[in-house]
């Protein structure tokens, strides 16, 4: 079977606007959740989030790109440029390089602004590029234009599993020999009034902090950003002397066929087992788990039980980095994969910050509050989404 490696990584998120800065924040256990400054924030009950501060799209993008992109696509463009620069991948006129960019909400702030104009402000016109900015495939399309990608290019939407699904599917396209390389990841920018108000309705958001696995947790906190990776067939990457950041050993994409929103222990277990089987590994080979770990009562309890069931007596360290960068929805798995790369390449396990009190229902070593040194040869990353959709990745050193 053709093997797949990661040869480039890029990100924009609330922790930093590049990979080194993000990893430094994760290693320092530095969180980015803070009071939000969005329009009409006084009408929100949830007023915290992990926003990308000081975003200056003009410093990175052309005028044409600026005029035709929502914030989520801007994040994707900048993250992808970083990943391509690191990888050194050359793209010719062939049809064998593409991009799959996950997103849950697409250009939500563009929709929000257009609705505000016509409903709240009584205007009868919206900006001409409203549709091409808000469409969920906008980020993938922009990457195609920016890097000359002529192969399979599309968006993928599975709510909070979108970017893990994107990476898993891109990996499968390379394994199948359909392409030689793919850009894959996710992008999300939901921290606008409508995006936050919609989440308020579900009553699962914390108004205070994200505290995954802590007994005192009381909900999730939204973030925003993007992470994009260059995935390549391993032999070709080695032949051209590309930097090998990790190998994708196994992927799984499964569904619970159960509840629309409630997490499923059986579903989570099945997805982790399937990813390990795809990697040809026993659970004991895993040295670190990056959890979905949203900080809701139900997710963390269910995920902890699933991890215990799969890993038995030898559960490796588990952390949720969402307490630092927020829940970045359709981009979250991609940003969390950066924590896995740090564990593999720098032997630093990112902590679960905001942790206050042990919860007997989450009986795991969650690397509380402070990062840990430790050799990690294999890492597993979970994403579980509304709809009962699961995507799990298993990565190793390259």
């Amino acid at each position, binding site marked *: 079977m053709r093997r797949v490696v990661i040869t480039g990584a890029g990100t924009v998120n609330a922790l930093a606007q590049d990979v080194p800065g993000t990893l430094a924040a994760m290693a320092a256990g530095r969180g980015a959740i803070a009071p939000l400054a969005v329009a009409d924030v006084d009408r929100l009950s949830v007023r915290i989030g992990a926003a990308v501060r000081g975003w200056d799209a003009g410093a990175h993008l052309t005028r044409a790109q600026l005029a035709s992109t929502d914030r989520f696509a801007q994040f994707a463009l900048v993250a992808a440029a970083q990943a391509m620069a690191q990888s050194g991948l050359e793209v010719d006129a062939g049809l064998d390089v593409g991009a799959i960019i996950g997103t849950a909400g697409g250009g939500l702030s563009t929709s929000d602004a257009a609705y505000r104009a016509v409903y709240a402000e009584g205007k009868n016109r919206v900006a001409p590029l409203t549709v091409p900015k808000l469409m969920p495939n906008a980020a993938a399309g922009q990457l195609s234009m920016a890097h000359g990608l002529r192969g399979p290019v599309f968006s993928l939407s599975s709510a909070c599993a979108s970017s893990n699904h994107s990476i898993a599917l891109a990996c499968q396209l390379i394994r199948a020999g359909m392409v030689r390389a793919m850009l894959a990841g996710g992008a999300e920018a939901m921290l606008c009034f409508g995006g936050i108000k919609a989440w308020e*309705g579900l*009553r*699962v958001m914390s108004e205070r902090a994200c505290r995954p696995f802590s007994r005192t947790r009381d*909900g999730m906190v939204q973030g925003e950003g993007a992470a994009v990776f260059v995935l390549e067939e391993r032999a070709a990457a080695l032949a051209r002397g590309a930097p090998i950041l990790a190998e994708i050993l196994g992927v799984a994409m499964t569904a619970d066929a159960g509840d*629309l929103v*409630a997490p499923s222990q059986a579903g989570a277990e099945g997805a982790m087992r399937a990813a390990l089987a795809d990697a040809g590994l026993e659970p004991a080979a895993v040295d670190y788990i990056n959890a979905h770990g949203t900080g*809701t*009562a*139900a997710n963390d309890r269910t995920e902890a039980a699933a991890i215990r069931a799969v890993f038995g007596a030898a559960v490796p360290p588990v952390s949720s980095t969402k307490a630092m960068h927020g829940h970045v929805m359709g981009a979250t798995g991609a940003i969390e994969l950066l924590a896995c790369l740090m564990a593999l390449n720098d032997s630093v396990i990112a902590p679960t910050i905001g942790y206050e009190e042990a919860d007997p229902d989450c009986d795991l070593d969650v690397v509380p509050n402070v990062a840990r040194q430790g050799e990690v040869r294999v890492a597993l990353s979970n994403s579980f989404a509304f709809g009962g959709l699961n995507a799990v990745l298993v990565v190793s050193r390259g």
Partner: protein
Amino acid sequence: MTVREKVIAIIAEKAVLDASDVTLDSSLDALGMDSLAMVEAIFAMEECFDISIPFNANDPEEGRFDISSVGSIVAAVEDLLAQKVT
């Protein structure tokens, strides 16, 4: 309709039951309501009575809004309505 009747009607609708099957001492579990149905019922009560109900699905038992039974919900809604008047 009294507040009690309205609350029972809302809960019955979300639990897909007849109002006659919902009594003040019924627990939500016994009525077969999951957390999503509860969130929908809370929203319907807020809209019906024009009140804001403090309820977080992450800690329903510890919340400021007592949902241990239909009767406790009626009492809590009546409290919120009384606060609204004053």
